[in-house]
């Protein structure tokens, strides 16, 4: 039978579900079933235990009516159970209707960047982040999608969130739904951690945990640990944050910043690519150079003819000029048997050999190896080319001409080789200079990034300077987003239907986001832009509003002034659209 697929089916109303709930009927059926089962047993009456059960079962049928009166009187308690179990499901369903992606940085140019670390999975590592937090990765902490242990380089991508600017920039929702009660999370520090091998996501080995020791300026011991479930679109309570147990807050600034890794930007990536492309270019030039050298005319030195020695045994042989070009010019050449051939005797000259082959001898161009064969007999002799009488004189004349030609070719080749070498070396030098320049630029760019990050960190942690700090410990069994938080209910007290005015004059419409920033707590309320503004007049707030692709803010003094006399006009200032990093964003928000 096939499978049917329903889209957007109407949910069954709670009233209808509740109308089918009938515990009395369930108990009745259960007892009936118990009695029938007991009766079907042939030893029913003989078995004391079963008899006892049946008696109890019979008795409980009678008690059913009593149950109804007992449990109906506990209606409040039942409602409590329903609330606990059913409301979150409804809320999730409502959440899931949203067509927006769950985590969307509200300002397109702005986000909290990832720090990247590489480590060998089989070795593990302790990584130090830019804020001096630690990521402790045990040995063999990763498995692949098949659940197999991973060996080799794993890239950890990590980012941390410390204040309201980080929270707004990241777009990570801080709303928390607990049993239908909406609240916003006040953060004592949040992390986002992922792992990859060759761009493929990896998983944490179920037998291992990654420990993150996060530096935090929130020293209160009131926080819980939560993990963000991006599908259920809600935070999941994990446990109480007990990381402060036995820990005394430390005064002053965190230790000096230790950079393990430098984040790359588009420019450094391009530079690295250009640098990587240079060695292959040099290799290509080398190949072209070698080819050109090989194509140059070869200078083959002619062999100087030798005069035949009187009385020395000789062989007259036909020589393949292609095989031995150095002998090609000699007419009527003979091969003298060298005195080193102890195996030679005059009888060898009398035999008609079936084959006589010449090959190169140990002194190249001077002597040759003559191999004589007749059936199974093989004789090997070292022979020397030689000429007699007028043939020798003619050969000498030819040799002189050939030698001059050879010298000319050789001289030209030397010049050409030198020119080609210079050309190649020039190109190689140019490439190496380019590589050096690119390397310098890359180093400069990386230093710039590092300085910016240091500056960012310095700003990020400037508040730590004179504040106390603690280490919050996250035990990570799965990659994702974790938070040490405390839920805060929506602000109560005053209610306004605000009219936002840019620079006190131009009304601002079509709000995309409205963030109410708590000055005294690490807390940001992501407000519904269509609802009135609720706030506690005893708290200090500022506002960050995003509309029509622009970012506006209202500092806490203006907010306090504008709202003190219950007027509904709130003056906003536009934040520069050039801001593309959290440090400047923080400054602009006055955090």
């Amino acid at each position: 039978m096939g499978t049917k697929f329903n889209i957007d089916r109407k949910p069954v109303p709670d009233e209808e579900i509740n109308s089918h709930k009938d515990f009395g009927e369930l108990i009745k059926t259960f007892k009936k079933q118990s009695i029938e089962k007991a009766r079907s047993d042939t030893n029913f009456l003989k078995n004391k235990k079963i008899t006892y059960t049946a008696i109890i079962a019979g008795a409980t049928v009678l008690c059913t009516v009593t149950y109804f009166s007992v449990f109906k009187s506990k209606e409040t308690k039942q409602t409590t159970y329903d609330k606990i179990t059913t409301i979150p499901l409804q809320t999730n369903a409502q959440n899931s209707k949203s067509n927006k992606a769950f985590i969307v940085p509200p300002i397109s140019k702005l986000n909290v960047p990832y720090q990247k670390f590489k480590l060998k999975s089989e070795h593990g590592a302790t990584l130090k982040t830019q804020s001096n937090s630690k990521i402790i990765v045990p040995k063999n902490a990763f498995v692949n999608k098949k659940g197999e242990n991973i060996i080799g380089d794993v890239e950890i991508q990590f980012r941390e969130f410390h204040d309201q600017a980080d929270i707004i920039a990241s777009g990570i929702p801080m709303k928390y739904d607990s049993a239908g009660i909406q609240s916003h999370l006040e953060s004592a520090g949040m992390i986002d951690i992922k792992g990859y091998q060759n761009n493929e996501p990896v998983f944490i080995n179920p037998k291992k945990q990654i420990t993150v020791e996060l530096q935090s300026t929130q020293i209160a011991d009131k926080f819980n640990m939560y993990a963000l479930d991006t599908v259920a679109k809600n935070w999941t309570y994990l446990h109480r944050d007990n990381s402060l147990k036995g820990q005394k807050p430390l005064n002053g600034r965190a230790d000096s910043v230790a950079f393990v890794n430098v984040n790359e930007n588009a420019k450094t990536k391009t530079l690295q690519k250009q640098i990587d492309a240079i060695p292959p270019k040099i290799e290509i030039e080398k190949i072209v150079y070698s080819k050109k050298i090989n194509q140059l005319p070869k200078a083959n030195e002619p062999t100087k003819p030798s005069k035949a020695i009187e009385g020395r045994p000789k062989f007259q042989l036909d020589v393949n000029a292609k095989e031995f070009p150095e002998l090609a010019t000699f007419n009527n050449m003979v091969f003298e048997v060298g005195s080193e051939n102890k195996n030679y005797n005059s009888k060898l000259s009398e035999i008609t050999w079936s084959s006589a082959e010449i090959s190169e001898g140990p002194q190249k161009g001077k002597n040759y190896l003559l191999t004589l064969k007749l059936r199974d007999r093989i004789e090997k002799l070292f022979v020397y080319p030689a000429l007699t009488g007028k043939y020798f004189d003619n050969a000498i004349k030819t040799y002189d001409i050939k030698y001059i030609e050879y010298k000319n070719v050789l001289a030209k080749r030397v010049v050409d080789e030198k020119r080609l070498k210079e050309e190649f070396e020039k190109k190689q030098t140019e490439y190496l200079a380019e590589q050096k320049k690119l390397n310098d630029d890359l180093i400069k760019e990386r230093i710039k990034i590092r300085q910016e990050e240091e500056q960012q960190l310095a700003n990020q942690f400037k508040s730590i300077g004179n504040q106390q700090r603690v280490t919050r410990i996250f035990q990570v069994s799965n990659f994702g987003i974790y938070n040490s938080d405390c839920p805060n209910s929506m602000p109560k007290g005053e209610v306004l239907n605000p009219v936002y005015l840019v620079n006190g004059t131009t009304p601002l419409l079509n709000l995309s986001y409205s963030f109410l920033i708590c000055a005294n707590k690490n807390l940001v309320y992501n407000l519904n832009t269509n609802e009135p503004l609720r706030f506690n007049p005893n708290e200090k707030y500022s506002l960050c509003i995003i509309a029509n692709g622009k970012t506006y803010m209202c500092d806490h003094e203006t907010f306090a002034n504008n709202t003190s006399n219950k007027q509904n006009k709130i003056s906003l200032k536009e934040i520069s659209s050039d801001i593309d990093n959290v440090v400047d964003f923080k400054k602009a928000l006055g955090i």
Partner: protein
Amino acid sequence: MEFSPRYHHTADMLQTEQHLIEAAKQNPEHFGPLYDKYYKQIFGYVYQRMDCKDTAFDLTSQVFLKALTNIEKYEYKGVPFASWLYRIAHSEVMQSFRTRKNLRTVNADISDLRNICEEVEQEYMEEYKSILMTVIKDLPEDDLQLVELRFFEKRQFKEIAEILNLTETNAKVKLYRILDRVKKTLTKSNKNGN
């Protein structure tokens, strides 16, 4: 015994629930609070997989009857009572497809399909709707269960693992593989479409 408060909010609530289970083991009458607490969830689970509402109500009653009959066998060994009920519900639902020839049904919202697209880093397009429906319908039962629990019922991996009697990592790995296949199908259809 320690209880994990993972999706019951507090250890106290789990402890209370354990008392209710013990009481129900002693006397079936005391099963009432557990029945009230989980009725809607179990009906939701059953109806999620059925086309006919009345059949879903009947099966829900069956699930609780079975739970009550077997409650003596339930012991807290890390699997919460809710997951135990879901396992019974799953078995009943599957049984009904086999014996009563009830129609296996997948129920989802458009937003769930969008969520799947988001998870595989694809922007949702109207033409993906029918592709996703076909891909999901054609999944083997075990894979379909995973997709339903995670995307249509928005359950945490821990709970999914407990219901399906898997390790959490195994559930993740399996779902990742399914999503990988979905992604490939969508990418392919995108290429063919272009």
